[in-house]
């Protein structure tokens, strides 16, 4: 019998799911590999056991649970707890599930501040903020802050072949081989170790000769562009060129830190300062944590502990 799979999404954007749906033949191999028993994007299994009735959240038992997105609402916690309970192995899929992702940027404000701002834009009618909805949690957390997670597979979105590979390894009981190097690993740009003394504003574009391959272009960081490659987990381009670099645009860190407890902001600032680069030219340093603001890394501005 094929292993059963639950696939849930929480505080994310569905990019992870779409990446999987985009994967062509790989999608079929997923269908071959497992029996999907719960997957709100693709199938109509509901939380409520008895259709149409109020009741406890019910999820089927499964061998493997995939969760995308972090935890941002009270309802997410409920779903996540049920997933953990019902799934033998729980996999955090995507950067949001693993590190909070973009939604965790809101951790720099309280839930109240966020509600206030969102419901008072110029075109919004004056009205009390919604209260008949699952409550916004004060902080967006990664799922491993809330429940035990067996495998963490980052990416924004993750590469589908990695998802499949993780599942295959799991089913075959092999050791997980996740990428553990940074974006630079497969970046072909020319590095010399010598860079600019300052970091340019994000509006400055890479210098290169159009038509020349990437391996003739100078490393973007060495060009003085803020490229988060060195502090960001690699794998976005598979074994090939990192995706942003294909557009000659620098990495912004969407796979999260290279090491689980790495800190993309601190690691980057440190690497720059150690090389004598003036990191203070960088505006809004905290946006370097835009993909990994969970685990208490981003906190409301002005909070000091």
């Amino acid at each position, binding site marked *: 019998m094929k292993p059963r799979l639950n696939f849930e999404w929480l505080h994310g954007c*569905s990019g992870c799911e*779409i990446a999987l749906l*985009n994967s062509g033949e790989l999608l079929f191999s997923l269908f071959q590999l497992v029996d999907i028993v719960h997957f709100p994007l693709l199938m109509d299994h509901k939380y409520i056991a008895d259709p149409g009735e109020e009741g406890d959240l019910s999820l089927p038992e499964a061998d493997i649970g995939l969760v995308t997105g972090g935890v941002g609402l009270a309802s997410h916690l409920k779903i996540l707890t049920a997933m953990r309970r019902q799934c033998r192995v729980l996999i955090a899929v995507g950067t949001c599930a693993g590190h909070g992702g973009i939604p965790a940027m*809101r951790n720099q404000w309280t839930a109240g501040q966020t509600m206030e701002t969102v419901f008072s834009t110029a075109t919004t009618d004056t009205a009390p903020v*919604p209260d008949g909805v699952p409550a916004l949690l004060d902080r967006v957390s990664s799922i491993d802050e809330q429940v035990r997670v067996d495998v963490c597979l980052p990416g924004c979105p993750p590469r589908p072949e990695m998802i499949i590979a993780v599942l295959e390894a799991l089913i075959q009981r092999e050791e997980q081989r996740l990428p553990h190097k940074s974006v630079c690993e497969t970046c072909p740009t020319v590095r010399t170790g010598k860079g600019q003394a300052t970091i340019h*504003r*994000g509006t400055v*574009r890479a210098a290169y000769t159009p038509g020349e391959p990437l391996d003739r272009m100078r490393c973007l960081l060495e060009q003085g562009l803020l490229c988060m490659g060195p502090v960001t987990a690699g794998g976005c381009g598979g074994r090939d060129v990192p995706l942003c670099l294909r557009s000659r645009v620098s990495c912004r860190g969407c796979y999260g830190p290279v090491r689980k407890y790495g800190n993309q902001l601190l690691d980057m600032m440190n690497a720059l300062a150690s090389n004598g680069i003036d990191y203070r030219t960088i505006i809004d340093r905290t946006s370097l944590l835009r993909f990994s603001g969970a685990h208490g890394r981003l906190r409301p501005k002005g909070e000091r502990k």
Partner: protein
Amino acid sequence: MKRAITIEPITRIEGHARIRIDLDESGRVSDARVEITALRGFEQFVIGRPAEEIPRIVTRICGICPWMHHLAAVKAIDGCFGVSPPPAGNLLRELAQVLAHIHDKILHFFFLAAPDFVLGPESDYSVRNVMGLVRSEPELAARVVRMRQLALAMLERFAGKAIHPVAGVVGGFARPMDAGEQRDLLADGQVLLDFACQSLAFAKERIFSRFVEEMLSLGSVTTGFLGTVDAQGSLRLYDGLLRLMDPGGGLVEFPVEEYDQFLAEHVEPWSYAKMVYARSWGEGISLDSSQPRGIYRANTLARINVCDHIATPRAQEELEAFRELFGRPAQGTLLYHWARLIELVYACERTLELLADERIVEPLVHHVVEPGAGRGIGHVEAPRGTLLHEYATDGNGCITRANLIVGTTHNVAPMQLCVRQAADRLIGNGAADEEILNRIEMAVRAYDP
């Protein structure tokens, strides 16, 4: 006995939502609504960020249509910094957008919506899905998957990252397209166009003909429509004038900069999603299904309704045939699917047009940008409706204020009406089986929310 039925989650849509139907003692529907149960707060957390970073952040509003947010934001920040891209930059952006549309439409129609039609709304939930489709229509499924992959590959070919893109940059596009790419993409575009036409033919023959009744009745309401057209009144996705049609068919056009005079957002305590309504009609908003006010719809059917014609031949041909059958405006909710396939044809034709424009391979793809204070509004027609991003920046070029009106929100209010209409029609005596509930969901699914 009063009773409430909750459908949670609404499945085969993107995002978190639930349907709540209240029944009175007699088992009649007393209220029905779609509750959007997620909020991430982008308008809050983009504050203070360097504006040029915004296009790389707001993509995460939606993993299905990141390109739309990317481009709306990049256009808005162009406005903040007072730049406009060189011709190649604009062409490449639009090419990316139409390819993303193609990709999205195939996904929605075949993966999310089609199971209801191909396998039937009454079929068991465990087979009424794409996996079921793969089993019952393996060749079609394989072709669909290949075509989506092709559209994706085309996008990646010149724009790198396809989901959560990075190639749109303030002032233009990140890298030029070379002649080799142009040649290859033209060939691929042709394949897509063929597929689009075949898809529409397949749908007309296999689906729409079987569901004519549902197409006109399920969740059917009468509303206004919002879309984008060019000066000639032709359908536009990337840019143009906004055109608002009132329920009676009256048209008003306005530039996007004036959107706040025409549109406003309404808040209900049971939904995180705000409901956009037509402020310019001066009647406020009412969700009362017997006497709705201020409500219009966006997305495919809306665009098909508001435009006078489509500037590409095959889509125009299909538009004419569609209007022949359903008139203008067409109000049937499930007609959104039909309109979606007409747009798919248009998007494929537009792809070929853009690639045929020799300026698309010019090496100058972006202009130099100086960050500074300003205000900018960017808009594109996203698959799910008209998408608006507005930002203001300070002297340092950092965001001070943001207002986002996302495609789906235009349709949140009409969805309420549709669900109520469907519930009223389908639930009698409090009896609601799985098929009935799925049919109610189908009314939501048509909007591809």
